[in-house]
């Protein structure tokens, strides 16, 4: 899985591409470890390139959410693809995360 990120208006956008499963989780958790700090806890996760996520991938997102909350920040998702949405709905974690249609609306919400 590719993990690319950039800082935009005090918000960190991380774009994921590929399968998000147990073998790919370390790449994402490493990114969270290195980039999410008390002063940088506003995160948008762009899932446009993710067509498959398993429970390990979901758990990695939950850890990211918890870490941002710990620092009084936000951790939101955008560009959710249908297969990912199905898993989020099955686990009802769709109720725990905030979704946005695209990066622009997510950035606007976090910058407000």
């Amino acid at each position: 899985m590719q993990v690319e990120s950039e800082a935009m208006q005090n918000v960190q956008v991380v774009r994921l591409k590929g399968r998000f499963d147990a073998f790919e989780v370390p790449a994402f958790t490493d990114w969270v470890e290195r980039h999410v700090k008390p002063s940088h806890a506003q995160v948008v996760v762009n899932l446009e390139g993710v067509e498959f996520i398993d429970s390990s991938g979901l758990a990695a997102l939950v850890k990211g959410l918890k870490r941002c909350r710990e620092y009084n920040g936000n951790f939101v998702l955008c560009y959710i693809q249908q297969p990912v949405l199905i898993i989020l709905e099955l686990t009802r974690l769709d109720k725990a995360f905030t979704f946005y249609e695209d990066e622009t609306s997510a950035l606007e919400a976090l910058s407000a």
Partner: protein
Amino acid sequence: MMRIAFVTTYPPGKGTLNEYGFHFANHLRQKDEVSELYLLVDELPRGTTYPADEPAEDGRAALFYRPCWRFGSWRNAWRIQQAVANIKPDIVLFNLQFATFSERRVAAALGLLAPWLSRQNGTLSAVLLHNIMEKVDLHQAGFGGSALLESVTRLAGNFFTRMLLRADMVAVTIPRYVEILSEKYKADHVVLAPHGAFETIPQPSFNLPPGPLQIMTFGKFGTYKRVELLIQAYERLLQRVSHPLELVIAGSDSPNARGYLARVQAQYAHVEGIRYTGYVPEEDVPTLFQAAAVVVLPYTSTTGSSGVLHQAGSYGKAVVLPHLGDFTDLVLEEGYTGQFYMPDDPLSLADAIEKLLLDPGFREDCGRRNYLAAVGLPMSDVVDWYLLHFERLLNRSLAPDEVYQQAMVFK
């Protein structure tokens, strides 16, 4: 910070799901979100006691043992509800399967009213349901009988499933179970929560101790876990495999099948090299798994995800599993691998075991993959999911409109 009550079986209690309850509680205690954990456990036989309560320390929540129900009693729901009312937790979580409270139909069913009673009493209630009536083989589960009796049991099961669904949240471990409960009962508060690996352990050694190659099975036997087929397969392997072998049957009778293992032991007394360990204390479990060359799951029906499979994966073990529809799907979806056998064919089981016994490289590869699958989602992460749901429920309990909307779903 949450005060949580957890209704479960728990060691040294020997009821089904006691190990799951132990590990779940252990992880729950370690979460920052939890301040107090009350274990509402079953009363132990005379002469056995639970450990002393533990204060909060080293980042772990305070732990309190409250024995308040008895396996087989008709009064469990009422007594649990009373205990919950006394403790006044923020939320009560029930660790359940259909036979948690009794091996007899009426007492088992009445116990399942506990989540509803607790909610009626004003406490948020969540249920972790390890199996659902629609997928339980009544005969295998010890609730068999005539066709009429089974039909009545199923009807009653539907009713009590509806009562369980009166909880604020119901978690199941298999995606298909979410679909069934959502479609059949129109429930919109059923969540998928994976089983999770009991322990996060360092990468295991893939070397085996000297001596015979051990074929090991672990569990509570006599209902849907049965060892006859395994012993028959083992007899064939003794003739085929030149390396010394040992069959280790580790665990005790299911509470619903008392005397089962003694009967099996008598029936197969002529077969050499079988070791019956009896109940395995928690501290002896690692040695048991580490010594096994192959772990066999001799299940005859599907009852949800398998704790033994997750344990075997945690110890990097190759597994042999029955080819059962939902179960096979679940195993593969969770990233495990193994040798599958036809559930009623000892020859098929012998072939599956033999393939792993005779090819150490393949066996180790299977073990490594199972290890990765097992550590992929530690129970600690699963507990985080529950806490997120609990937070949502606690926040929602302040929003009467949403509570009303959910109540309407069941009208």
